[in-house]
């Protein structure tokens, strides 16, 4: 049983942190489920964790894991009520509705020009509005994590043509993703956008006479990506092996068997189960205007009646196709598989906290997945809480944490300062281009395998040499490195997002939709040290190294602020110089490798 060694940087609260290290080692020693052991080994109860952050930096660290970036208000609240109560409070917040956001934008656009649509941008804007201003931060952060496990993508042309339904998919993840995993799996499996994306919508049963076979796409990916993964897992997430080879969870026969289950599902339709409804989503000119997001319906005549065997279970042959019964049985079986807890739990840890959780951390989260303490399996709120409350989530070492997702680098920046949106829609738009933007847009992964793989190892890196995976490094390359720096340079100077002409101070100016208020920073422009200290608190949570601070203070100081002359005629130059100092200080902070890693 490998024990994780944590190298702790000297900082405040050092004694208490070492106590936590000891706790984690204890867990590792007794709770991890040794290789070859029973996967149902009980996990030792976790000793009580520290209930409140010791200081604002601690609070900010937690909020980088649980939100789109800490704000002063969130830090205050968390300091006041502590981790557990804060999480519970977040779970109780009313949910953002991305579909409602999209519909509001769409209606406003149509009121000007009936041919216009909020389009894909409406989805991104809603994401950013929720990320920057949403009260339900934790829920939306979890939605973003789930959207990278249960992936649909508007890079697919058909999915991309249904942005309202994609917004609904995000709402479905928010609803069921903080409910029970079994319902989440069903919500995902029956959502028409998933049906379009992984092609089980309109999938037909085999025709043994001609040799036509069911589409195997969803059957394969629901196992590989959404539930159990390729390999049998110990309860701590390590791969079970036999003779040095990983034990596989399924084979081609399982896929063929499960593929039969995902036949006969298609659009919601007024004339269900009419054949034309199955094929076209409409019959006799009637279709359901909400068919893009209403759960897919089973069409018995297209559902396989054959016996369906997979993963050691068999759904008996049916006299008449019963898609509902088949689906229920199949999803029950998948959701009950012992792999689900460690497989989904580890990926959620990787999305929220750290790329390389210890086996003990995974085991603790998997144990909560298996039983929330009240005998309920798959309680997602309990799983999220366990992930965020685990002692390992509080530890900082040279190998802990994760490369911060490009989207999260921007969101933390937008939340650190008062930003406002001229349109009120938060028109950040598509940020796909690695050369000019983030190289990552929410709901636009390149494939169902997401922007990156959980097991990605970046070749030739220190992380690789240390045996660490680094999922987010899969999209880090020379172009994206430069593109991010240039994008942030301009975001700081000009604001973020699409440009529009807006009335400001009695005149019309054209500017980007998201505009910052750097008043507090501008007030410190003549005190570079104080300015950088403020940014250290805002963006680096007090962890800025002394040499980085010196470097930034030096660069900021080198920008001369002319003395204001007696007539005040050079006020504009003075203002520009002050703004350039603020720009430079923020820029040099957010482009630092330190900022780009969530520790």
């Amino acid at each position, binding site marked *: 049983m490998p024990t994780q060694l944590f190298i702790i*940087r000297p900082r405040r609260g050092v004694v208490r942190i070492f106590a936590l290290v000891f706790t984690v080692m204890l867990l590792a020693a007794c709770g991890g489920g040794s290789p070859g052991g029973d996967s149902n080994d009980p996990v030792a109860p976790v000793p009580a964790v520290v209930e409140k952050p010791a200081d604002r930096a601690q609070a900010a660290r937690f909020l980088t894991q649980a939100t789109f970036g800490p704000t002063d208000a969130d830090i205050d609240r968390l300091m006041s009520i502590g981790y557990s109560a804060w999480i519970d409070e977040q779970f109780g917040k009313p949910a953002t509705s991305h579909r409602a956001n999209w519909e509001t934008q769409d209606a406003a656009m149509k009121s000007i020009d009936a041919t216009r649509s909020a389009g894909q941008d409406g989805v991104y804007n809603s994401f950013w509005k929720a990320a920057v201003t949403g009260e339900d931060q934790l829920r939306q952060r979890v939605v973003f994590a789930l959207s990278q496990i249960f992936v649909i993508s508007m890079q697919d042309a058909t999915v991309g043509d249904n942005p309202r339904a994609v917004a609904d998919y995000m709402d479905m993840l928010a609803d069921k993703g903080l409910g029970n995993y079994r319902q989440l799996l069903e919500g995902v499996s029956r959502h028409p956008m998933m049906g379009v994306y992984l*092609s089980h919508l*309109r999938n*037909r049963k085999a025709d043994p006479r*001609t*040799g036509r*076979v*069911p*589409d*195997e*796409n969803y059957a394969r990916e629901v196992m590989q990506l959404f539930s159990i993964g390729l390999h049998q897992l110990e309860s701590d997430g390590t791969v079970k092996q036999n003779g040095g080879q990983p034990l596989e969870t399924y084979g*081609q026969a399982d*896929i063929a068997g499960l593929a039969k289950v995902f036949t006969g599902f298609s659009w919601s339709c007024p004339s269900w189960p009419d054949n034309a409804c199955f*094929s076209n989503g409409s019959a006799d000119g009637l279709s359901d205007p909400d068919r893009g997001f209403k759960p897919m319906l089973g069409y018995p005549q297209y559902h396989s009646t054959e016996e369906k065997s997979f993963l050691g279970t068999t759904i008996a042959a049916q006299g008449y196709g019963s898609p509902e019964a088949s689906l229920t049985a199949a999803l029950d079986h998948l959701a009950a598989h012992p792999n689900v807890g460690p497989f989904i739990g580890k990926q959620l840890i990787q999305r929220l906290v750290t*790329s390389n959780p210890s086996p003990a951390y995974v085991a603790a989260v998997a144990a909560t997945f298996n039983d929330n303490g009240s005998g309920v399996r798959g309680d997602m709120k309990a799983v999220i809480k366990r992930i965020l409350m685990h002692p390992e989530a509080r530890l900082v070492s*040279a*190998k802990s*944490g994760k*490369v911060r997702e490009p989207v999260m680098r921007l969101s933390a920046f937008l939340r650190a300062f008062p930003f406002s949106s001229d349109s009120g829609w938060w028109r950040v738009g598509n940020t796909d281009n690695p*050369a000019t933007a983030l190289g990552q847009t929410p709901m636009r992964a390149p*494939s169902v*395998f997401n922007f990156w*793989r959980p*097991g990605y*190892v*970046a*070749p*030739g*890196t*220190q*992380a*690789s040499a*240390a045996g660490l*995976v*680094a999922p987010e*490094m899969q*999209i*880090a*390359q*020379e*172009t994206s*490195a*430069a593109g991010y720096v*240039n994008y942030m*340079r301009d975001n700081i100077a000009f604001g973020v997002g699409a440009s529009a002409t807006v009335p400001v101070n009695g005149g019309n100016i054209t500017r980007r939709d998201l505009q910052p208020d750097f008043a507090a920073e501008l007030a410190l422009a003549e005190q570079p040290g104080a300015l950088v200290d403020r940014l250290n608190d805002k963006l680096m949570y007090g962890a800025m*190294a002394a*040499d980085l601070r010196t470097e*930034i203070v*030096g*660069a900021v100081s*080198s*920008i001369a602020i002319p003395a204001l002359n007696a007539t005040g005629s050079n006020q504009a130059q003075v203002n520009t110089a002050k703004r350039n100092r603020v*720009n*430079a200080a923020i820029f*040099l902070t957010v*482009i630092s*490798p*330190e900022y*780009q*890693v969530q520790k």
Partner: protein
Amino acid sequence: MTDKIDASRRMFLRHAGTMTALTAVGGPLALNLLAMGTASAQAAGDYKAIVCLFMFGGNDSINMVLPTDAASFANYTTIRNQAPDSIALLAPGTPSGGSGTSPAALGGVLPINPANAQGRSFALHPVMGELQTMFDTDKRLAILPNVGPLIMPTTKTQYGQNSHPKPKSLFSHNDQQNIWQSFLPEGATKGWGGRMGDLLASMNARSVFTSISVSGNAVWLSGENIRQYQVSANGAIRMGANASGQIYGSTAVAAAMERIVQASRGGHVFESDLAAVSARSIQAESLLRAVLAARPPSDARFGTPATNYNPNTDPKLQYLNPATGASAFNSLAQQLQMVARLVDASSAPEIGARRQVFFVSIGGFDTHDAQNANHAQLMARLAHAMRYFDTTLAAIGAQDKVTAFTASDFGRTFTSNGDGTDHGWGAHHFVMGGAVRGGDLYGAFPAYGTKNANDNNFDDSLDQIGNGSLLPTTSVDQLGATLGRWFGLSDSQLLDIFPNLVNWNLSQRNLGFMI
């Protein structure tokens, strides 16, 4: 600054030192040392590049290269003509029946004439006219039937035996992408392009330009020591500063930016790794800035001259979209335009490369449904991009120096699911270049069988497994080793790079498609 670009000499010395140390132990590494000397002694000025053209998603090569002899074509037609949308392409000579991408609209497949037709007849997808010419007339295109990852030669009987070694995680996208590139599943860190680079980088002035992606990160390009360098299809992106070297009007800020992004102060591994990427970004861009500016895409050798060049409207980068009948931008061609510009610049002192590996890619091949609409477009883009690259290489006098090969996650099922195909294994692939013995097939073309009464196991074909997926008869190791031999690698180096090559007889380790 920790990541220096002019490291190839140092790397060579380290490499040689390692080998000397290991030579004392004896064994094949002693041969490696000699082989390295041989490679290093190649004539000055000799330049070669290998380009991997990866089709992400798993290309349905069964509809790309087709056997048209009566028996094969009849079986193909029977199996692929399924409701609701037949994906069975039509026989050579069938006239095109209107617009769109249905088999009837596309018209018949395009016959080709391999030098050795194996007693059969063959054709290409109807939209691949450019490749028909390159195969039949120019003889700069070869076809490798039924290639895929294999541990060792595998018969259909052996496929059914658990004891027979087979590649891990067959039929899984991400794993098979990795295995094609590196022989290991997800998590792999060394690919065979990068390993070739390791062994030949001593021929290059700067190791950084040995291995270049114009697409995303690709493990194929990473070696033991070689790191991939990624460049956008438009060129290297300058980080931070404007043309005057300023950020927010300040050169001091620009200088601080360069220092900050290239170093890690905290000692966190991820910070160091990000800093290394930024260091390569800044240093490589400073080297490429002038050489690429001297070879702009508006240069008639690479594109169409224009005052305000826009790649999206350059006629040379437009393919004929079979779905619309209109021209459309082909991003794959633009990636290859960047490869051609870099090849042309390879002898410039800023680059100084004599051996390079490149990676370009095109996605969208996972045609589980709507295959007719999507696959024809992909085939049109592939054919156009390959022809564009061939023409451009001719314009810069590099046709004989550059060899491109296609790769993909896997082939697809022979059976249809009604409007698409599912994950398979073996697939037909192309190799292209002036040094390729074009106009022929290398390897036996598989037999396409008939459906059994009870299932889709195709018992009458030794080349097909469940749902008619192809059981590969040529391995990725054999493909790579044949390319590697042309590249200048020795037998022992090839055995070092290609872990399964040893399982094929000496005579089978060179497929013979390279001059």
